[in-house]
Every structure is written in structure tokens, then in C-alpha cells.
């Protein structure tokens, strides 16, 4: 990373200056502070808490799913309700938990890391956040309307989604609102990064987290309108007599899948690129050695983003495409393994001959690399069409995408939270509880999901509430793992709450290997930071 030099004195003098600022423009008290705030740190905090509460809601749905699958036979619920649970578990985790969490990170970190005082559009930032609770309310309250919540899978495939009751309409509106929020958030992030960097911070001197978010934000602006378009077509098919996806009226149900996955595949990278960014910040810090191949990391991120737009139909190898189309999408998909591999190699080279220590963020980062790579391997297996045709819509695919989304995105988020908590709260978190959280998550995650590879290969389809007796043992193991994984997250909540309420005072730079700009600010970061931009040399 670039050498950083602050224009004026560090630490003490700095804190004093900002203390003064706090008196002048301190936040209003009580509820109004959060409703009216335009401060990137307040909004970031709200994003993170919103995301955590959605993580709990989606997690409870997963509990329901795994409880029903604990044994063969129907024990706890009807098949319709089971389908509602799988559908909304997916939707809530993707749109409610993972994506807002990364936006929360962007809000907190991007301005501090590029030396900007706040986000470019501070009021729009407030609006992007406050769109989320109504959308969440629509999603959750759909469970209580006649017909129940949407039960056609998080992918909304018609004609099944055309058959559903009003719960599906609520789902569609929720997605519209979430999409609007994401687009606004992305425009804000792009504008902030392109226009508000401190003097001297060229693009190629930006921290990698900022780079990955810049690229992610472009992807979001590209694909969210496509999702909005396709769910609008679904809505008009449902209520206004159009036949976009109805063959009897001249439409094509497969066209929906093409449009949906044109959004859906880049979406996968929207959820993983910022995770790559977080890992690329944590690893050099705790290896006490600069990131290996900074520029190749930037190029790899951009290549992944571009490739992600031309591989969507690998989600559809069983719909019966022409052979040339199938082969094109297979080759393009396999190509993604190249830049992704480069990233893993660069991370390994960063650790090589470093002087490593293993605090909780580093543990999550190493856990990430290890498990994400396993998810990458199963991804390559899935790219090979004959094998994919066997594992498509089975538990193998479930295992694959939980390895990249849970032990990928979610582990990176955990690592990021532990890494930056001292900066956010001004206190050190409880290191032994943090390590406990890591090891519990690591063990239970693998207990839950590793056996699902075997279930899928042996022939258990996904989205089924019941299964043949042959699958009973592995399902029970997986359920036990899932309950353990869910409960382990209470440790995380404890650590965070404890850290907010007190604990050892954090220094401005609690990690001796850290190099980015936010560590030049005092801990906790003052309400208004970088009012005078630093100069980067």
C-alpha cells in the first residue's frame, strides 16, 4: 500500500480538534438521531444492525427447515409452509442480511479509508437505509396473509410463481424496494469513491476494500434494474393479463430464467467481491507484510466482474439449450476460476514469509480462504456440464453455495466486524470469546454442509420437505450442525454487545500491521472524521 502521511499532527491533536467538532455539530438525541441522520457512521451502524436482525430472522427459518428435515416424514409443518420457509430463507439472507451488511461496511469504511468526510449524497444515504425496514416488513408479514408467503423458491420461477397468492405480490414489491435501495446506495458509493478521495490517493493507491466496492457498485447498478424489470413482468403476468412467461399466450417461461439469472449471477459476485476486499485488508495486517500482487488483485476483481455477466445460463443447464449455447456458458464459467485462483494464490503469497499472528479477524480470514476454496472447487465441478446436470437442483448445489456464501461472504463479514470493531466502538472486543465464536462456527458449519455434498451426489433433490430413508443419517447430522451453527452466533452477539458497552480502551491503531487511513483516526472514530482531508504520498 501507499505510504500515508497526515497533513497535521496525529492522535492527540486530532482527537482534540474532532472533540470540538462534536460540540458544534453533535447528533440530535433519541429516535430523531436515527431517523434524520445523514452521518455515514450512524447509517452504517443502522445497516449493520438491520442486517444482523435479518440474519436472525433468516436463521430462524433455516432452523425450521432443518428441524423438518431432521427425520424422514412430515413432522412439524405442511409442505407449503416448508416451501415458504426455503423461499424466504434465501431471499432474506441474500437481500436482507448479506447485501445490507456489506453496504454497512461501505458506509463506515469507505469515507474513512479514502479520507473523505462523509458519503457524497448524505440525504440519499439516509433514504437508502430507511427503505429497507418497510421491505423487510413486507417479506415477513407475507407469512400472515391468506395463502401464506411466496413458496416458489427465491428465484420466483414462473409459472409456479404465477399460481401463488398475494404473498407473492408482497415479495415482488419487497424486491422492488430493496432494489431501489441498492441502486441508490451504489450510486452513492461510486460517486464518493470517484470524487472524494484524499489528495494524492490515486485509484491504484486505494485500499483493496474500496476497489472491490467500486466494482461491486457498478455491477449493482447494471443488474438491479434487470431484476426489477423481470419481477415487474411477473407482476403484470399475474394481474394484468400479459403473457411474457406464458407459452399459451406466446410467451416463454424460460425467458424469465434468462433474465433472472442475468441479474442472479452477477449478484453472486456482488455478495463475494466486497468479501474479497475485507480479506485483502485483514491478511496483510496480521501477516505484517504488504498484500502480494496489489495490481493483479485489482485486475482479477475487474475480470471476475466482467466474466460474471456472461455466465448466467450455467444455472440453466437442464432447461434444454442448444449445444453451442451450453458449451459457451461452460467455457465462460470455467474461465472465472482463473482470476479467482489468482486471488487465492496472491493471498497465500501474502502470508508466505510474513510474521503472522492469529487474532480473531485473521482466523476468520484463513477460515474464509480454506472454505471458500472448497466452495470454488465444487464450483468448478458444477461448471462441467455432464456433472452439473447430475447435481443441478440437488443438495450438492446447496452445499456449494453455502460454502461460498456462509463460509465465504459471512465469514469475511465476521472477520471485518472483529477487525474494525475497535475503531467503531473505541474498545477492544473479548479475544477469547471471539476465538470461541470462530471455532464453533468453523466446526458446526462443516458439520452442517459437508455432508450435503454426499446427499446431493447420492440423489437427494433440494427444496423437498421429505426424503427416502437412505438419506436419514446425513440429514440428521446436517440438522445438528445447523442448530449448533445458529446458536454459535449468540456468542457473536455477546462479543459485539460487550464491546460496545465497554472493555479495554482501543488505541488509534490497535493492529501493528495495519496501514490504511482509518487507523490514523482516533478510536472510536470521531462523529465527523477527515474534515480536513489527509494527504497521501
Amino acid at each position, binding site marked *: 500500500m501507499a505510504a500515508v502521511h497526515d497533513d497535521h499532527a496525529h492522535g492527540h491533536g486530532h482527537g482534540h480538534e474532532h472533540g470540538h467538532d462534536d460540540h458544534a455539530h453533535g447528533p440530535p438525541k433519541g429516535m430523531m438521531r436515527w431517523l434524520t441522520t445523514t452521518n455515514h457512521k450512524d447509517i452504517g451502524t443502522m445497516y449493520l444492525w438491520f442486517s444482523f436482525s435479518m440474519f436472525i430472522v433468516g436463521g430462524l427459518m433455516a432452523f425450521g427447515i432443518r428441524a423438518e428435515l431432521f427425520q424422514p416424514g412430515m413432522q412439524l409443518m405442511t409442505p407449503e409452509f416448508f416451501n415458504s420457509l426455503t423461499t424466504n430463507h434465501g431471499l432474506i439472507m441474500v437481500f436482507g442480511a448479506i447485501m445490507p451488511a456489506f453496504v454497512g461496511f461501505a458506509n463506515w469504511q469507505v469515507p474513512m479509508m479514502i479520507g473523505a468526510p462523509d458519503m457524497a449524497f448524505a440525504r440519499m444515504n439516509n433514504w437508502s437505509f430507511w427503505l429497507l425496514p418497510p421491505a423487510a416488513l413486507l417479506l415477513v408479514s407475507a407469512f400472515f396473509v391468506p395463502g401464506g408467503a411466496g413458496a416458489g423458491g427465491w428465484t420466483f420461477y414462473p409459472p409456479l410463481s404465477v399460481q401463488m397468492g398475494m404473498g407473492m405480490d408482497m415479495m415482488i414489491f419487497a424486491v422492488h424496494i430493496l432494489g431501489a435501495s441498492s441502486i441508490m446506495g451504489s450510486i452513492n458509493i461510486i460517486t464518493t469513491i470517484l470524487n472524494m478521495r484524499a489528495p494524492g490517493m490515486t485509484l491504484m493507491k486505494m485500499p483493496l476494500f474500496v476497489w472491490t466496492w467500486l466494482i461491486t457498485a457498478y455491477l449493482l447498478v447494471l443488474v438491479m434494474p434487470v431484476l426489477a424489470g423481470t419481477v415487474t413482468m411477473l407482476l403484470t403476468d399475474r394481474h394484468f393479463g400479459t403473457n411474457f412467461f406464458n407459452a399459451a399466450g406466446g410467451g416463454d417461461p424460460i425467458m424469465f430464467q434468462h433474465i433472472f439469472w442475468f441479474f442472479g449471477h452477477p449478484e453472486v459476485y456482488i455478495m463475494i467481491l466486497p468479501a474479497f476486499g475485507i480479506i485483502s485488508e485483514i491478511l496483510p495486517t496480521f501477516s505484517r507484510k504488504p498484500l502480494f500482487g496489489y495490481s493483479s488483485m485489482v485486475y482479477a476483481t475487474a475480470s471476475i466482474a466482467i466474466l460474471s455477466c456472461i455466465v448466467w445460463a450455467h444455472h440453466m443447464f437442464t432447461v434444454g439449450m442448444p449445444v453451442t449455447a451450453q458449451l459457451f456458458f461452460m467455457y465462460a464459467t470455467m474461465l472465472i476460476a482463473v482470476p479467482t485462483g489468482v486471488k487465492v494464490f496472491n493471498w497465500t503469497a501474502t502470508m508466505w514469509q510474513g510474521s503472522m499472528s492469529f487474532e480473531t479477524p485473521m482466523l476468520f480470514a484463513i477460515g474464509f480462504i480454506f472454505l471458500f476454496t472448497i466452495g470454488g472447487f465444487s464450483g468448478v465441478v458444477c461448471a462441467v456440464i455432464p456433472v452439473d446436470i*447430475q447435481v443441478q437442483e440437488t443438495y450438492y448445489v446447496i452445499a456449494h453455495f453455502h460454502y461460498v456464501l456462509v463460509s465465504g461472504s459471512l465469514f469475511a463479514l465476521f472477520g471485518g466486524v472483529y477487525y474494525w470493531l475497535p475503531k467503531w466502538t473505541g474498545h477492544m472486543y473479548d479475544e477469547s470469546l471471539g476465538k470461541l465464536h470462530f471455532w464453533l462456527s468453523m466446526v458446526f458449519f462443516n458439520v452442517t454442509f459437508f455432508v450435503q455434498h454426499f446427499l446431493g451426489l447420492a440423489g437427494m433433490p433440494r427444496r423437498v420437505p421429505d426424503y427416502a430413508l437412505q438419506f436419514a443419517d446425513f440429514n440428521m447430522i446436517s440438522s445438528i450442525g445447523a442448530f449448533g451453527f445458529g446458536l454459535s452466533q449468540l456468542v457473536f452477539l455477546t462479543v459485539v454487545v460487550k464491546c460496545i458497552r465497554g472493555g479495554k480502551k482501543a488505541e488509534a491503531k490497535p493492529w501493528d500491521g495495519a496501514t490504511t487511513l482509518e487507523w490514523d483516526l482516533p478510536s472510536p472514530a470521531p462523529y465527523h472524521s477527515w474534515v480536513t482531508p489527509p494527504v497521501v504520498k
Partner: protein
Amino acid sequence: MSSKAVATLLGTLSIAWYSGMVMAAADPYQLNFQQPNSTIAQQTYDQHIMLLWICLAIFIGVFGVMLYSLINHRKSKGYKAANFHHSTTVEIIWTVIPFIILFAMAYPATKTVIAMKDTSNPDITVKVTGYQWQWGYDYLIGEGAGISFISRSSTTLDQRNNKAPKDEFYMLRADKPMVVPVGKRVRLLITSNDVIHAWWVPAFGVKQDAIPGFIRDAWFQADRVGTFVGQCTELCGKDHGFMPIVVEVMEPAQYTKWAAEQKAQSAKTVVDVNKVFTLDELKADGEKVYAGNCVACHQANGQGIPGTFVALDGSKIANGPKAEHINIVVNGGKAGSAMAAFKHLSDVDIAAVVTYERNAWSNTTGDVIQPSEINAFRK
């Protein structure tokens, strides 16, 4: 380095054991694909094993280096960090090598994909139709042409709801399996009547979505006789988990015998559409048709599931004009309704089920609908 050697040895042994392992159908610890029963499935199986070997090699390479580093390059051991952070040569090397590996993976896969798509020169052609939640088979061309039947899960609701014991074939058997001769090329024309389903039999290496309004094809040629089981693999509504696919592969002579039996049976059951039935005959038949096609949503007591599936008991349609009732059964509900079209049922079946619905539970219209009325309605 010795830890790396141990890891290599263990990994090699375990994957060798894994790749040699072909499990019997109902092994609760089956770790791999089912035993293949077609050329395509065999190629798929072999490619999967090859991919695992490649992944294992990369895994050992990358994580061997990382493990060495994690053990030795520690601050607690006083290791001083180096300061290198760039090497174009290394970057080029680890960009090019994956390309070569990927090419090695893609080459055999490409050949298999092309073979999968070649559905020419079939011995037998069967149309497969997905219904919510059962499968229809129509033998179109080749030996057995003209045979047509619906295949439903043999698992009972009581078994599902833990009120009856589950046997070893729980969820794995259908009342009428699809039957094909061994060693013959079977072409499938796959479509759907309502929502998207997918026809999957792992042992044949065939998985093809059944798309309403479109016909897609696939083929297989079974290498040995036996019963082979798959399931619907595209979410298709509440009973998605309960529509098994069962294929019986027979010796050709046995298949010929089966085909003749089926034809004789269907000749017996062909009824003159102008035959006049009594109310009781139709009600009795209708109850069976109802149990096979309607009960999943509208329930045995005709109450449906409030908020999701409408009740027929006391409903406006079942007690209103006949024509509307016949129309909704034959052509399905309005766009957006979960009610599927049942035009694939025979005139007699539709007449029977409509008569039953109009005279069951508290519905007492006394209407008798004759097959001739359905026949006239269809024109």
C-alpha cells in the same frame, strides 16, 4: 515436509477408495454418484472422479504451502516478515497453469455434451408429461406405441404423516413405473401440463426440465435390467417432493410381453363415449379419479386448504351451472390460478369426477354428467 507427505498419502488413499466405490442403491452412507447404467452416466461418473483428483492435487499444493507458512512464519516464533509484494513472472505462471488445467477438464466434457444432445435414431420414443404432482407417459413410436398411463407415488399420506410404518421403498416407488427394454435407445419428449418440473433418473445420467408449452428431448440407453429411481428436481409446488420417477428396465422379450398386456388392458377399458352411466356408477368412478388427481389440493373432505386451495364442498362452481364446472376441470382456472387443466383425462373420467364433485359431501345437485357431454364440450 513430512506433514505434506502424510497429507498426500491420506488424500490419495481416501480418494482412491472413493473412486473405486460404487454403492448399492440404499446405502445410508453413500458418498458418490449412483452406479451408472448408461454410457452417458458412466462418462459423467468418470469425469467427476477426474475432477476430484485435480481438485485434490491443487488442494494439496496450495494448502500445503499455506500450512507450512502458518506453522513456520509466525510472529510468536519471532519470524521476521519479508517485504516482497510483487512478481509479474509468478502472476503469469499462476494465470497460465489454470488455463491448461481447465482445458483438460473441458475436453472430455465437451464430447459428452455433444453425445447427450444427439437424440437421433431412437428405437422407442416416449412422451413424458409432468403434472402437479404426477408423471404421464405416452409411448409414441416404436414397440409399445399407443401405451399411455399416469404414474403416481406409491407412498401413502399416512406413511408421510408418520401414521403408517415406512418401508425400505418409502418415497421410491410409483404405482405404474415407466417400462423400457434393455439396450435400446429411448428418446424422451419431455413437457409439462402446468408448471416447470424436471425428469431425473441419476443412473441414466438424464435430467431435463419439463416446460409447459415447449417440448425438450433427451435420450438414454440402459445397459442392464433393474428398477431405477429418480425424482422431480424442479420445485413445482407443494407436493414437489412426492413425485418419484420409477423406470423398470426389462429384457426385450419381457418388454414385448408387457407391451402386449398393456394394449390388451387398454382395449378392455376403452368405453364408447355414448354409453349412458347411472349416477352411482359415475360417483364411484369419480371418487377414484378424485383421489388420484384432485385430493392433493382440494382434500378428501372437499374443504381444500383455506387461503391456498378453494373448498369444493358447498362451492359456487360445484353447485352452479354444469358448463362452468366442466370448463374449469378441462381447461383449468383463470390465469394466476393454481387450478391446472385436466384435459388429458378421458371423457369418462372427467364426467365421473364432475358428477362426483357435484354429489359429494354436502353438494346434492343430483346432476349426472355423461361422457358424451364432455365429448361435445371438447368440440
